[in-house]
Structure formats: C-alpha cells, structure tokens
C-alpha cells in the first residue's frame, strides 16, 4: 500500500519546509538548520529510491552516508563562519548584513 511515491512525497514536503526556512527566517543559525532539513529530505529520497529500485546495489544508502558526512563538515564550517560574523557585527540577524545593497 505504501509505495515509493509516498516516501518521495515525504521527501518533497520536508524539502519545501526547509526551503521556506531558508527564505523566511532571520537568524543565520535557523537558516543553517533549515539547510540541514533539506539535506535530510534528499537523503530520504536517496534511500527510498535505492531500496525500491536497486536494492542489490546499495547505492542509495551509500550515497546517503556520504551526504551525511558532507553535511556534517558543512555544518561545522558554517557555524564557524557564523561565529566569525558574530564577532564582527555582534549580531546574527541576516537583515543586518546588507552592505551590498543599493
């Protein structure tokens, strides 16, 4: 009854929520968290597709693991950057970083 489509749609919904968070949140850390949400959605897609379409190859899970690795690295570096920004501007409010405006 529950097939591949359902997993994929779940992935879509999570992705959409994460994208909304990237656009519509002011705190830089919140944006980073939303990015993590998007990556998780993608992972669900990979694993589901791998399990349903090519279970013997194990590609889906392997790819998901690598995505997790990269996401971890990216979170570390991203948060380091946020800390540097905070030291410079005493704020993590993205509205305050608008030097490039007209």
């Amino acid at each position, binding site marked *: 009854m529950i097939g591949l489509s359902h997993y994929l749609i779940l992935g879509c919904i999570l992705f959409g929520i994460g994208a909304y968070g990237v656009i519509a949140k002011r705190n830089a850390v919140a944006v980073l968290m939303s990015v993590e949400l998007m990556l998780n959605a993608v992972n669900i897609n990979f694993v589901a597709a791998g399990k349903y379409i090519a279970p*013997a190859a194990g590609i889906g899970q392997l790819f998901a693991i690598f995505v997790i690795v990269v996401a971890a690295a990216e979170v570390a570096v991203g948060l380091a950057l946020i800390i540097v920004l905070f030291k410079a501007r005493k704020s993590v409010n993205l509205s305050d970083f608008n030097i490039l405006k007209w």
Partner: protein
Amino acid sequence: MTLKDISFLLIAGFTIVSALGVVTFKNIVHSALSLVLTFLGVAGIYFQLNAGFVGVVQILVYAGAISVLIIFAIMLVMDTEVNKTNLPNPSLGTSLLGGYIILLLTVTLGASIWFSSFPISAQLAPKDDVGFLANLMLGKYVVPFEIAAVLLLVAVVGAIILAKGAEDK
C-alpha cells in the same frame, strides 16, 4: 492497511510536524530541539525502509553530533532575549513570495511523483546490511570514502581556524 503502513504514516506525520516546528518557533532553542526530533523522525523512516545502518548513522551523527554543535553555536551567538531570537523575515513580501514559490515547487514535484510510474525492482535486499555496505565502501567506492575522510579533516581544521581567527606571524 497493514501495521507497516500505519507506522509509516505516524512517523512521517511526526517528522513533518517537527519540521514545521523548526521553521515556526520564535525561540531558537525550541527550533533546535524540534530539529533534533526531526532527525529522529527521519531515522525512523530509515528503519522503516530496512536501512538500519543509515538510520543508526543518522542518529549518531545528526541527532548526536550535529545537533549538539548547533546548540553550542546558538549559545555562543545568543545576545538578545531568547524569545525573540528566531523571528521571521521582516520583509513580508519576501516571506509570502517565498512561500508561494515553495508551495508551487512542492505541489509540482508531488504531482509529478504521484503520476509517474517507477521501475520497482523485484529483487530482495541482501540480508547482511552492514557487511554489504562495508564491502562496497572499501571496495568499489574506496576513493570517495577516502576523500570524505580528508574532507572531514579539512573541515575540522578550517572551522577551528575560522572560529579562532588566523594570526599573522
């Protein structure tokens, strides 16, 4: 409607609710905690799919390490009243437009997924999950594996240097 289906629906619903909590709470710490719940929910989905290894890795890495890292960072950069730390974007136009576009995206993708047919394989998954994955990782995909290791090293070093500030010698 088997038990498996019901459990899928429950876990999926839990995950989606937690995700909504991440983007909705005005308190960033509440957001972070919602994120942890989301990660757990996703791990549950993995177990539902019989991908045990990935699920455990998800819990260990995401819910364990990354969440802690995020909460540390939140604590380091928190400077105002905690209930106002995660306010939505002040520009209402951006939020609405963004919401609309994302809705469009989600609906389109969802519809296209629902109306397409996938080549479902009839094969069964191998029994020994972890060993099978280990064979692949150290066999066919050893190069990405090593590169991932190096990447982690670089990220760690980079993060430290960034956070500490490079000194001119």
